């Protein structure tokens, strides 16, 4: 192992990756359309969770407002799809750029803060953007959400069947996760881990840590924005709830259940969260939130390092 590379992870095993991708890609072939779209939603949410883990787990920046950039990306991609074009990859790129812009405009304040201040600021900013989504009706559609987003198109061919949409989501998910993994293993990624472990020491070594934190904040915002664009394409409706604190909290829950800092764990966490919300929730008269709240409390006490923590502990 070279000194620069992180500990070998399961993702590093190309065989496992290939099998997982093949299984995911063949989901539409053996699942009903509704189940397929649930898997798509898991992937969308999983990409959001992975981008959040880059902040929380790799860089030590526990954001409570990450859904804001997810929402900004979703609204921007939706707006472009309605008003300009829904041809792939335009909405995806617009979503990524919008997420990055949103993070760039707000991140310069958050990265100045430490500890509990960072939590509070990200929460406040996320919530303010949520309110903006509510009040800026001409663009966002207000409380009813942005409806009537046309299906994504490949050339002139609209993707209407859930299977095709799933493949589009899967492809973008794979690209997004790959980019995050690449960055996390780069020299920049090692520097982020250094900042997470000991920021004053990084400064003493000559790293301008605030610039690094800002860079990763914006980068994670762009990945979240990309996930938002996928949401717009998959759900074809964007509501203020997608921007809100509840979404940010669920993404955080996915990260923590899956294992902070593992990057692959949050995808599994996202699957659990979405299954509880969409599959178990309806059976409880829509009170899946109650179950999720209990899961939150249980995870903190019982599984502080998530499932990923269990795996890596066994490997040490």
């Amino acid at each position, binding site marked *: 192992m070279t*000194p620069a590379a992180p500990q070998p992870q399961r993702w590093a095993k190309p065989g496992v990756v290939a099998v997982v991708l093949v299984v995911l890609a063949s989901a539409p072939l053996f699942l009903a359309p509704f189940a397929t779209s649930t898997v798509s939603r898991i992937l969308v949410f999983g990409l959001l969770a992975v981008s959040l883990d880059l902040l929380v787990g790799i860089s030590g920046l526990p954001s409570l407002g990450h859904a804001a950039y997810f929402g900004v990306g979703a609204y921007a991609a939706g707006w472009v799809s309605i008003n300009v074009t829904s041809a792939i990859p335009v909405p995806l790129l617009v979503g990524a750029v919008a997420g990055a812009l949103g993070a760039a405009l707000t991140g310069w304040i958050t990265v100045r803060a430490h500890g509990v201040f960072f939590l509070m600021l990200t929460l406040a900013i996320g919530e303010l953007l949520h309110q903006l989504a509510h009040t800026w009706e001409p663009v966002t559609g207000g409380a009813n959400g942005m409806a009537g987003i046309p299906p994504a198109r490949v050339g002139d061919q609209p993707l209407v069947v859930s299977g095709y949409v799933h493949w589009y989501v899967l492809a973008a998910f794979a690209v997004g996760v790959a980019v995050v993994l*690449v960055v996390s293993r780069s020299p920049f990624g*090692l520097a982020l*881990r*250094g900042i997470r*472990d*000991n920021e004053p020491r990084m400064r003493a*070594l000559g790293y*301008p840590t605030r610039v690094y934190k800002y860079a990763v904040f914006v980068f994670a915002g762009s990945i979240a924005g990309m996930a938002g664009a996928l949401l717009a394409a998959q759900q074809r409706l964007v509501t203020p709830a997608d921007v809100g604190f509840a979404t940010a909290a669920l993404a955080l829950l996915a990260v923590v259940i899956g294992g902070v800092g593992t990057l692959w764990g949050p995808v599994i966490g996202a699957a659990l969260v979405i299954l509880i919300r969409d599959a178990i929730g309806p059976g409880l008269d829509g009170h899946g939130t109650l179950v999720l709240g209990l899961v939150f409390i249980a995870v903190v006490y019982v599984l502080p390092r998530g499932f990923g923590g269990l795996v890596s502990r066994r490997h040490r």
Partner: protein
Amino acid sequence: MTLTCHGLRRRFGALTAVDDVSLSVTAGARHALIGPNGAGKSTLFKLITGLLRSDSGRVSLAGQDVTTASEVRRCRLGISQAMQHASLFPTLSAAENVTLAVRRHEGRISWMPRRQPSIHARTDEVLDQVGLADRGRVQVGALSHGERKQLEVALALACRPKLLLLDEPAAGMSAAERAGLVALIAGLPAEITVLFVEHDLDVVFELADTVTVLNLGRVLLSGDPAAVRASDEVRQAYLGGAR
């Protein structure tokens, strides 16, 4: 690289931790800073590295005034410090710790993973220099106390310092580790100026060519080791401090 401090003063509330300290460290010196606890040694270090700002006075490096320069900027100019209490990256391996320092100094912090043989070679070289050649893959959390202090020195050396500040490098080390450390510092090339704080006077008199004694924030005496060893004033400050 020469270091000149002129009339440095720093207060914390009613306490004047560093009081009108002037200090001149010549290029290539092995300069020791001694004094009882609370003499202001660590505060003086922080004023030199830029972690703290002085209330008055000036600091210059190689003739260049850096009184208001940031920590990052001073680091770029060639100051590097090994902290008193090892301040490392606990979840990273020893080699990754050193790599962070090496890469900041002579690599590019790119967003893409890349093979950088020169960085790896330099990392191995530094680890070898401090005697941690076979511990590179161990997580810092699993290193012994002495090994962490060695790694701390490695991080400082990895920046190819022109001025190396060592804050009690030998504290908490075993006799064997201490002997290794003394040999390491003694063997550093003359381009590296060394300023160190140390309580172990054997280490001080073995290494130092100049000794400055601080007491209650002021310079008590500065001179060659023999003169300092002979001084009544120093003996009194030390014994007084111990009593």
